[in-house]
């Protein structure tokens, strides 16, 4: 036992710096934020212990709570829908090409937009596409219809935000699905063909179940990204008009750095952490990966 431990020492030595950095930059802030959520304090100002008051205020008395979670649900639902369907269809189409060179070129083409910073893409959508004189409004005017303030109109703002990124075939997601499709053994395809499964039926019955690991991964990443991320909303609408496009993460940011309510913001952060944790566990439990499916059939 001791000899084994001694033999492992170099490995622990290699791991230690990473663990220390992880503890300093990931674990400690989380613990501090959790502790801060029980205090009322502003940066540079007074601080006082308030117990669960921040949580009580957020969960019972914050006017943004319900609308922001409704908006988050709406945006996350569509993001999950798009991330599940669109890149998979594109990956399948590329995978079905006969020429290896054509597959390579298409993969490259779908990957290239990744080099554009996400926030730049968002701003292009906000100004050039959804703006007053943007592509959408000018097209409508060409057809004799009235333009709209897509990002200012309370009735359209959420739909406009949900549809940003159309046609949702972002490079990395396509590649992840493509990798999943290439890992399906040829024997499975051959057996399916012999059983008469072709076209859409083969796609739905064979390909989709066997890329469920990728679906699961992308769903988890999308949910986490949507719950935590708010930079696009910050740039385009700042959660407005009113709270029509507010999400909890953005409200947390405003409370922390604009309103200087660090304790309150920490409480929102803890609530979001619990939400992400719950959703991830749910996802792991409910969605069966290809490995689970294979294990179940053995």
């Amino acid at each position, binding site marked *: 036992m001791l000899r084994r431990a001694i033999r492992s020492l170099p490995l622990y030595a290699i791991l230690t710096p990473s663990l220390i950095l992880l503890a300093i930059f990931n674990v400690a802030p989380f613990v501090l934020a959790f502790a801060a959520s029980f205090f009322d304090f502003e*940066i*540079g*100002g007074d601080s006082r212990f308030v117990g669960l008051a921040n949580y009580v205020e957020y969960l019972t008395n914050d006017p943004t709570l319900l609308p922001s979670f409704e908006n988050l649900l709406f945006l996350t639902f569509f993001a999950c829908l798009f991330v599940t369907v669109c890149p998979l269809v594109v990956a399948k189409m590329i995978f079905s090409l006969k020429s290896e060179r054509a597959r390579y070129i298409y993969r490259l083409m779908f990957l290239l937009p990744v080099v554009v910073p996400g926030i730049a893409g968002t701003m292009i959508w*906000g*100004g050039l596409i*959804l*703006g*007053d*004189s943007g592509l959408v*409004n000018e097209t409508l005017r060409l057809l004799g219809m009235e*333009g*709209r*303030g*897509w*990002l*200012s*109109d*309370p009735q359209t703002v959420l739909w406009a935000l949900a549809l940003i990124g159309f046609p949702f075939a972002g490079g990395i997601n396509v590649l992840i699905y493509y990798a999943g499709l290439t890992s399906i053994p040829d024997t499975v395809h051959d057996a399916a063909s012999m059983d008469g499964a072709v076209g859409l039926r083969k796609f739905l019955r064979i390909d989709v179940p066997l890329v469920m690991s990728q679906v699961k991964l992308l769903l988890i990443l999308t949910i986490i990204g949507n719950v935590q991320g708010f930079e696009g909303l910050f740039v*385009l*609408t*700042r*959660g*407005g*008009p*009113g*709270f*029509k496009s507010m999400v909890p993460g953005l409200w947390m940011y*405003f*409370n922390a*750095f*604009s*309103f*200087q*309510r660090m304790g309150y913001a920490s409480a929102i952060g803890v609530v979001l952490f619990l939400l992400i944790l719950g959703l991830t566990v749910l996802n792991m439990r409910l969605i069966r990966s290809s490995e689970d499916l294979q294990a179940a059939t053995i």
Partner: protein
Amino acid sequence: MKLSTLTLPVVFALAAWALWPRPSGGAAEVAPSSNPANVKYVIRVAPGFYMPDRRPMDVGKPLQGLNEVAADFEKLYPDTRIEFVDVPSVREWVVTQLAAGTAPDIMNINVEDVWQDVQKGWYVPLDSFLEQSNPFVPKGSPGSRQWWDMFKYQAISRGKAAPDGKMYCLTLDMIETGIFYNKSLFAKFGVSPPKDWVDFLRIQQIFKDAGYTPMLVDSGAIADWGMDLLFDQLYDQLLPGIDLSKDPKREQYLQGYLDWDEICYLHGKGYFTKDDARYLETFRIMKDWRRFMPLNLSSVDLTKEFINQRGPMWWSSSLSVYKLARDPDMAFPWGVFYLPAIPKSYSKYANGHPMCVIGGSATQLELSNSAIQDTHDVRTSERLKRCVAFLQFLCLPKNTDRVVNEWVALLPNIKGVPVQPELQPFDTILKRQYGTTKWMFTFDLRFDDVYQRMLELYLNGGVSLSEFVGWMQRDIDSGCSTVVRRKHLDLSKFDPVWRSLAPERARMEDLPHAP
């Protein structure tokens, strides 16, 4: 190695060489005059608009004025080096830097933001320095008796004193807003700058009917400038009955300005609530104006829309003069007018008095807690002396001229420094009466945020007027309780004044029924 494998790197290298930025021909290099070995104090200055070596709005030559002033200053103070830093102008950044004690020594921040945090000891009051002579000024010139005397716009400059009575900022220049208008389009449609608000709306309707966006403005400007102008139009006449604080130091300049404690007290008496007819009227007027504004109120490039002639009028600040005067796509003559008064025929609470000043101090230089980091004591800090000396040196007319007039955007606030001809209309506007209050600078940022987003929702038809005012009522309640708690305010001090002004209020119509 094959030729083809070499080709790509060579092409990239050549392209990089071709695209590499060259030093601008017009920019004079200013060599540091101080010997690094002798430098004892490095003063960090975040100058905002005048950041040296930067092209304002990506137009024209890089600025050099401050570099030259700093070089001259360093010759006088060989133990000091001035270092200019470009910092984000967002409050989030400033607050974290000040809390950590790492903010620049001299910073340009809106002083109303400073007021929010003065109780934390983050800023150094300037009163004692401003009340003494400026040592760089020759005897007999403005500033030789009191530094204060050097400033041209006295009312606005002195009006920047914080509600705690102290002055934390030095106003180097002025900014003002105005309606930029397309003279060609005005001539084409046979209209001229409006006489009053009714005429203003009529002109906008003409342009709307012709398919233009008549008034290019965003929600931020409406919430900030628009609110304060309309508020002044409807409440100015009430001041004899509701101006509760007559601060001897500020009153002579601000002429009845309502501070946050007065706003809180009045709110407690029913003002700025659903029972306040003028408050409702303010937002009704705003909503009526909304139909002439862009569809998207917060994400439209208004400069582009104006230059591309999609909108004949653009509400912007004097900063835009620089861009418009130099934009290569500018294809029409333009002018500037100010928003016209609201006549009684349009609103029963207006009396047609001219719209007030909405702009004011532009570059507002404050000394942060970093300026006293050597001794942490204002009385003994040598570093602070250097910082103050640099500000005093900057205020010399020839230095302010070199800095402020290097680009045509802001109006110098130092006597003897000329205003550039393109900015004359704004100089005229600045002579108007000061506003009744500045709502966006009254309470904390939470108030501003909720107010701004709910106003945008209201203007876009997302909530009714009564729902919106309900939101505002709760927002002001929350803003008041925060400011009272943070500043330890005692509003009961206004009770005697409130009672003494009752006869004045008795002569006024449609006031909230105050207890």
